[in-house]
């Protein structure tokens, strides 16, 4: 009786928990998105912001968040639609922590009433205040080397920022390694970077390199050495067979998946495979996969269907031929055809049989021991 009451209560409770949600389709934007300024003690400046994409009657609130937010004031705290506003930034005399401090100027939708699950959009523009490091200090902002194909030129690109209070002369140098072996080393022209500015360094190696994976290090020496590493790949028109399906069930047509990986720095179209399955030199099946397009350096799968309906269990040889452009990659692999695994019912029947057998043995032992006792009496 108690259980029945409980069921009724939770059905009543559950039924009245509703999830009516607001239908939403909204946009909110802010411009400018990013502003950068160097820190100067007691500096004062203003930024004009414009809200974009808001509905005309959409109420919005404006606030600042993040580092140094307490030094920001606005000409208005609430807006209507795509309105403009001004942020007044009044910096302190000193900021103890050097580096980048980000103030987010945020605009958020105001929605007074909600029915169900509502959403509010909020957008933030970043005001980046760069506080210089004492003395000489530079950071590598980026170091990028493009992937190419063998024989094509390679571009090394790096951006360095002088975050200190002094101007620096940088002496750059790039090292290229294949594994642990240094294969190339070049010195770039030294350059003066004024404090709180950044410079871009590039180097083009026209001759390129042979296919392979390389790692490169850029070093900047300004009395102190700063370095950054990156990997890059030089491609070859080759697609490798990296894995494949190897276990199949007798009596079924099963998917035969072939994992492929492009080693080429361009897309390769019309990639497909043919699979010839043999047993003792006699063909037992032959199938072709649909063709796919491989993006540069992409790993993907080709899928064909292996017919094991009339095959016996055992090991077979599959010759996988991969066709692309005017090339063929081949791999000979072993695959296995097995009986289907036991069904759950069969396993349960065997388990039950063993259980009954053990019970029977127990009963026999019990009866035997009882009989022995009665004989002794």
């Amino acid at each position, binding site marked *: 009786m108690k259980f029945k009451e409980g069921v009724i209560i939770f059905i009543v409770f559950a039924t009245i928990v*509703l*999830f*009516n949600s607001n*239908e939403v*389709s909204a946009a909110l934007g*802010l411009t*400018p998105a990013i502003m950068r300024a160097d820190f100067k003690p007691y500096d004062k400046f203003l930024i004009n912001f414009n809200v974009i994409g808001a509905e005309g009657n959409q109420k919005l609130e404006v606030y600042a968040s993040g580092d140094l937010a307490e030094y920001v004031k606005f000409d208005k705290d609430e807006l209507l639609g795509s309105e403009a506003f001004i942020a007044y930034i009044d910096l302190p005399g000193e900021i103890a922590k050097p580096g*980048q401090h980000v103030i987010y100027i945020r605009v958020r939708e105001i929605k007074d009433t909600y029915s169900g699950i509502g959403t*509010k959009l909020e957008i933030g*523009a970043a005001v980046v205040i760069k506080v210089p490091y004492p003395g000489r200090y530079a950071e590598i902002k980026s170091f990028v080397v493009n992937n190419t194909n063998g024989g094509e030129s390679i571009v090394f690109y790096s951006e360095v920022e002088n975050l200190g209070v002094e101007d620096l002369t940088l002496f750059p140098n790039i090292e290229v390694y294949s594994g642990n072996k240094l294969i190339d080393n070049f010195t770039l022209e030294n350059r003066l970077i004024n404090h709180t500015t950044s410079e871009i360094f590039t180097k083009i190696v026209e001759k390129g390199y042979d296919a392979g994976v390389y790692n490169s290090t850029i070093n900047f020496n300004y009395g102190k050495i700063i370095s950054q590493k990156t990997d890059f790949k030089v491609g070859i028109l080759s697609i490798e067979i990296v894995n494949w399906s190897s276990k199949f069930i007798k009596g079924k047509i099963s998917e035969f998946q072939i994992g492929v990986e492009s080693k080429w720095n361009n897309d390769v179209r019309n990639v497909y495979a043919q699979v010839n399955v043999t047993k003792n030199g006699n063909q037992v099946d032959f199938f072709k996969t649909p063709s796919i397009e491989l993006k540069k350096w992409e790993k993907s799968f080709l899928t064909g269907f292996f017919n094991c309906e009339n095959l016996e269990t055992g090991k077979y040889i599959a010759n996988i031929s991969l066709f692309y452009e005017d090339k063929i990659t081949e791999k000979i692999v072993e695959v296995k055809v097995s009986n289907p695994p036991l069904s759950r019912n069969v396993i349960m029947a065997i388990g039950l049989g063993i259980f009954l057998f053990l019970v029977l043995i127990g009963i026999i032992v019990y009866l035997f021991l009882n009989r022995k006792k009665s004989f002794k009496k």
Partner: protein
Amino acid sequence: MKSETFLFILSIVIIILSFTSIFVSLYKNPNVLQKLTGYVSTNYGYVNLSISSYVSINLSTDSVSWGSGAINSGETNATLYTVRNGSAVVQRGNWSATNVTALHVENMGNVNCSLSIQTGKNAHDFFNSLTNSNEQYMLNVTNKESGSCSGDLLGSWVNVNKTSGGTRFCNNLGFNKDVNEIYVDVLFTIPYDAGNIGQQSDVIIITGDASG
């Protein structure tokens, strides 16, 4: 015959005048040839054009609307969750999953932005299970377009976060047209002993900050 002679003489005169004109022009302005070709060798036009950076997000999914429903008899909870733009799932309950899809967020700006999500309530605030069990309110952010967003929490169901700032799901939601869209799936596990009855509500704040 007379007219033929006249035309011949007129042609000769015109040819002589033409050559004289060319000669005079070249003599007066030797650079005229360069100008006649229409090829500008050193003079460039000047266009003053400034493009402002802007950060903008668009929320374009129309519905996350489960309507009303009940937990199946004999069950202690029901689970409801959206599956990207596919059919939503309702387990152990009879809520409608028709046209219920994930929130769809797009970076419409011209800079990358981070993406954080804050809710007004957590699961207990929402349902107030009397036994403090069988209740869940979670989000799962996935890329609609591969590579749109990067972050450790991508592809995992994460409990909602009602603290200020919420949970940052994306560090850099791209702005390039092919890699700028994500889905935000929502999951509820509704307890049989919910203390909050009647229509419940919450607000999800989606924040996009320009990546400074």
